[in-house]
């Protein structure tokens, strides 16, 4: 009997709470400007977070793909702060290639060069056998000629576009003048916006003697990975071999980028949350009498609190929708803006979307805590005394 009564009471309470939510939309529509300010705050937070995270995640993804093209392991200098400063010597590369587990090993040297008016263009020093030359779509020039001549470099199609050069032209790179031997299109934004040099030429250009930044290693049998890793690290204590996945999770620059993106995004959300708090506070203060009337009409503290949280959540949901719209719009524009040299390749994962929605709702609800407590403590007699 008591169970039946409890279930009936719970159902009744739930129903009445649901019906109160119908007031939420009405209240927001009654105070459109205020609601708009709250929605704008959250939507800018969502758009900022989406844009930053999508760009950072996309950049990390592109960088990962540069490193892991057709490979299982990456070998680079131990304890280096950034791969640009890593040195794996040609002797070490040769030693790696001689290992029985290794099918192929492709050294690569990274550098940043100034080309014409563009002060920062990524330069890749690679060997002629590097798989990215084979996978690229050659728009001009002959792949077979890569590395044959010392004064010739090759461009990604996006780089050729923003540098406004074509195969056969001469361009100034740093203090040298080089001939463009060919142009090839690559799906990876970093590579497509980059300059490619034969490895030995890049080593001369960057005065790195026989060094490579990283070696991408493809094994004959993936299961021999641990043996390969242990052998490399024993033979060459100064270098480290990491599985591609392991590298992505442990590489400091990726971690810093990710952390920074989330930190900036959350700061943007905090501003949005303050906006919601301000909106809800203004809303509660200007409706003290109205809330008192609701109490007189039978609304409990819990129902008043629910109404305020409902309004904040509705603002957050609208903010998320608008913010996603703005964010996707900004990303689409950035991806097609030539000035970004193709470096913006947004990548939006499900977990990022869920994270943004949760952060937005949490921020809005947190912003509504004080207004909701204030509203639930409104004393009807006090509020109605001075009619």
């Amino acid at each position, binding site marked *: 009997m008591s169970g039946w009564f409890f279930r009936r009471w719970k159902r009744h309470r739930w129903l009445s709470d649901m019906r109160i939510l119908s007031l939420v939309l009405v209240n927001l529509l009654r105070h459109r400007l205020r609601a708009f300010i709250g929605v704008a705050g959250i939507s800018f937070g969502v758009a900022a977070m989406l844009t930053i995270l999508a760009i950072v995640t996309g950049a990390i993804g592109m960088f990962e793909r540069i490193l892991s093209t057709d490979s299982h392991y990456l070998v680079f200098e131990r304890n280096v702060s950034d791969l640009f400063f890593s040195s794996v010597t040609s002797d070490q590369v040769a030693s790696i290639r001689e290992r029985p587990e290794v099918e192929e090993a492709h050294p690569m040297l990274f550098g940043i060069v100034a080309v014409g008016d563009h002060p920062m263009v990524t330069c890749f020093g690679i060997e002629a056998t590097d798989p990215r030359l084979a996978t690229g779509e050659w728009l001009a020039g002959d792949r077979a000629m890569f590395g044959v001549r010392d004064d010739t470099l090759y461009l990604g199609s996006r780089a050729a576009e923003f540098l406004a050069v074509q195969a056969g032209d001469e361009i100034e790179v740093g203090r040298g003048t080089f001939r463009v031997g060919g142009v090839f299109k690559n799906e990876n934004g970093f590579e497509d916006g980059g300059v490619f040099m034969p490895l030995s030429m890049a080593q001369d250009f960057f005065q790195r003697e026989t060094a490579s930044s990283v070696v991408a290693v493809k094994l004959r049998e993936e299961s021999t990975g641990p043996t390969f890793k242990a052998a490399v690290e024993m033979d060459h204590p100064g270098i480290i071999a990491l599985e591609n996945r392991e590298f992505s999770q442990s590489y400091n620059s990726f971690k810093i980028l990710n952390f920074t993106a989330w930190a900036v995004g959350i700061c943007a959300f905090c501003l949005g949350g303050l906006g919601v708090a301000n909106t809800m506070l203004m809303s509660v203060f200007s409706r003290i009498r*109205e809330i008192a009337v609701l109490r007189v009409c039978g609304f409990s503290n819990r129902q008043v609190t629910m109404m305020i949280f409902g309004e904040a959540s509705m603002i957050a949901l609208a903010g998320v929708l608008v913010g996603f719209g703005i964010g996707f719009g900004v990303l689409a524009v950035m991806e097609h803006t030539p000035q970004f040299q193709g470096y913006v390749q947004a990548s939006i994962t499900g977990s990022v979307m869920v994270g943004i929605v949760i952060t937005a709702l949490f921020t809005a609800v947190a912003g509504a805590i004080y207004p909701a407590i204030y509203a639930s403590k409104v004393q009807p007699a006090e509020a109605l005394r001075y009619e």
Partner: protein
Amino acid sequence: MSDRGEIIVRAKQVTKSYDDGRITVLHGVSLEVRAGEVVGLWGASGSGKSTLLHLLGGLDLPDAGTMEVCGLDPTREVDRIELRRHQLGYIFQMHNLIPDLTVEENVRVPALAIGTPRAETAKRVRELADKVDIRHRLHHRIQDLSGGERQRTAICRALMNGPRLLLADEPTGSLDEKTGNTVFALLKEMAEQNNIAILLATHERRFAEQCSRVLRVRDGQLSEI
């Protein structure tokens, strides 16, 4: 619905003061109100009429004394919510309707608090609107109504959940003479039809004289006249 003659309000030695006891508004007030009675609380502004209604409605707490309204204790939170939801309706001088909402939406508010099904609420709103002759205004916003229409809307809202007691605080105070008469007559009619007790605070003698009983409020004391 209450039985005729059943005691709806019983207050004994109720005292209320403000400003840390420096201003005493009610001095040991006692009263009883029975079902179907229209009891007028007549007195000048500031005499304590509204304070007494606030105490009985659980909007404020007394310093001393006991009160029982519809068998519940308005000083207890649980009883207060039950009282406001099912047992009493409140009518204010300035009607205190929610601006920007329509008449229908305002009248529905008490039903929202108790979760009455939508269809049942809509039927009840139409019934009440017919009774107070405001059905043609149901979809109009409050700011588009005259003073009398607003007060009739407030009466509908107060009656929404079928209360046994109406606490009316100067319900005709902001209305012109003709509209005031209409609203007062309407209140009396509602009380009679539904066997509702009404405790009506007014400073206008002409309305007080039409009540079934009149209690004069002066210097924080009640006296029957």
